[in-house]
């Protein structure tokens, strides 16, 4: 099996590739260039990495200004600061003026680990998804993260790309092509649908194996694009299985689970369970420990799925 890699590892290096290809990319970061990996861009192209110091509000609006002069501007920091602390800058400047700014902080979710709850952002999908003009991508491994960054860079206007710190198993190969608004069916099944994003995609694939050993056929879908959401793929699968689990490293409020519930509630009411953070903050621990602690590991997903279909 291929070496595990964090989604953040795709960030700086993909920006370098984009510049090499002639895209007018600039990254603005806030004293976390090593953690976010934008440092790599600065090493290749010193002028294209702008470090604003520990000043996240300024980071977002400097990126806004850069975008107004034709740059494709990416912003960094940790997801908790890079979305939460600067919500108003993203709302009133980036989204309200529909600027070409890509919000791509790293360290989203509880897989951040030992730093604890203050640093584990579990509300970001919710915050970003509610903003008009914003599109939201949640890659599940290094390869899909590279493509998410490319999709965001290629399409004009605001994007949120959710990147993480933890090293994740590789789900995709170089030939898997992603598109805005398209989910990926990774495992076809007939008894239950598991729709996941980010680190939970791999957990869900593992859950499907556990379920298979119990004779339950689970369909696993990588949502990838939370906004616009691939309603067609979701409805089609729900029609087939009649039971849907969502799994995300994020609050059950406002994230993927909510988005799927909105689509199904209006089109095809389906019994559902949302796996995610149950209205709680994270805590210190290793990523593996935390996934178990908060019930978002493969085993918990498999249990919930079996229970949902009465097995």
């Amino acid at each position: 099996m291929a070496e595990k890699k964090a989604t953040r590892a795709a960030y700086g290096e993909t920006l370098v590739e984009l510049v090499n290809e002639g895209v007018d990319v600039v990254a603005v970061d806030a004293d976390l260039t090593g953690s976010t990996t934008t440092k790599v861009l600065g090493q290749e192209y010193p002028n294209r990495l702008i470090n604003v110091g520990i000043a996240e509000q300024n980071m977002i609006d400097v990126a806004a200004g850069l975008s107004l002069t034709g740059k494709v501007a990416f912003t960094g920091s940790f997801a908790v600061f890079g979305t939460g602390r600067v919500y108003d800058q993203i709302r009133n400047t980036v989204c309200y003026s529909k600027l070409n700014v890509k919000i791509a902080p790293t360290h989203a979710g509880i897989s951040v680990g030992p730093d604890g709850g203050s640093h584990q952002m579990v509300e970001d999908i919710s915050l970003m998804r509610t903003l008009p003009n914003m599109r939201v991508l949640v890659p599940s491994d290094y390869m899909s993260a590279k493509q998410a960054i490319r999709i965001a860079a290629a399409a004009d206007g605001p994007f949120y790309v959710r990147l993480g710190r933890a090293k994740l198993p590789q789900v995709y190969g170089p030939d898997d092509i992603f598109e805005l608004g398209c989910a990926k069916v990774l495992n076809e099944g007939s008894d239950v649908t598991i729709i996941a994003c980010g680190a939970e995609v791999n957990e869900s694939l593992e859950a499907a194996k556990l379920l298979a050993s119990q004779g339950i056929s689970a369909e696993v879908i990588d949502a990838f694009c939370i906004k616009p959401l691939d309603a067609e793929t979701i409805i089609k699968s729900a029609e087939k299985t009649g039971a849907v689990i969502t799994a995300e490293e994020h609050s059950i409020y406002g994230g993927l689970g909510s988005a799927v519930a909105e689509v199904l509630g209006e089109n095809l009411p389906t019994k559902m369970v949302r796996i995610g953070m149950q209205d709680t903050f994270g805590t210190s621990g290793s990523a593996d420990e935390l996934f178990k602690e908060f019930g978002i590991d493969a085993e918990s997903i498999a249990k919930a799925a079996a229970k949902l279909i009465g097995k």
Partner: protein
Amino acid sequence: MASCVTPDGIKKIAYSASVMRYDIVDMISKAGSGHPGGSLSATDIVASLYLSGIMNCNKDNLDDPRRDRFVLSKGHAAPVLYAVLAQIGVIDREELGTLRQLHSRLQGHPDHLKLPGVEVSTGSLGQGLSISAGMALGLKMSYGSEAPTVFTLIGDGESQEGQVWEAAEFANHYGIANLVAILDYNNLQIDGHCSDVMDVSPVTKRWEAFGWHVIEVDGHDIEAVCNALQEAKDYQDGPVMIVAKTIKGKGVSFMEDQAGWHGKAPDADQTKQALEELKATIAAAREEMEA
């Protein structure tokens, strides 16, 4: 110092500014809401910027990437921006009457997606300096020593926002010389005088301490404002802050230096009185101009 604008030019700007003040009160009165105080305090500054020729921005070059730019960071003063856009022909004066109405391009706060000439939407205070610094840096990256200048107007109350000082240290650290900020120093915010609510003094020392070149000016002396703008644009050693001492509500006797006129439309009687005063100012400015 010889003026960068001719005496006749200054008289013309003064005349236009008097018309803008009339338009500001008129449009806010028709809208039934809006922010007269901070629009009137900034009128002479905004008129000088757009009408002196110092800022290379006019109705024919709004799509030219090499134009100079203006960001109205204190977005609630939208009426002064609309009034000057009418002066330079980007919008018809008639359209000013649609301020704040459903489907109008003239939103309560400037909307980049609706109205040409609005470089970026503003309204949430404290952000314009960061945006302008980013714009100026982007222009420097693209055009080097030929980079256009970015001008921005911020309020004194607005400068209480922490982000303003993030931008201040940033512009200094990156030596962004094609950035010119103007502080509308009227010593008023919503809840009263800044010196009572949250003192912003000593303004000049604060900006100097952040490494900015500071120019102090009477914000209602058009010749002095033009000279300051030209000096600031020419200054190559870093960002410049023009501290413009102003009177909130300037030009309407009962609005001057009154916190109560920050965000309120005049009623019918008040409108009549204000417009009469402003008509007299226009007549006097025209006489000066034609003398």
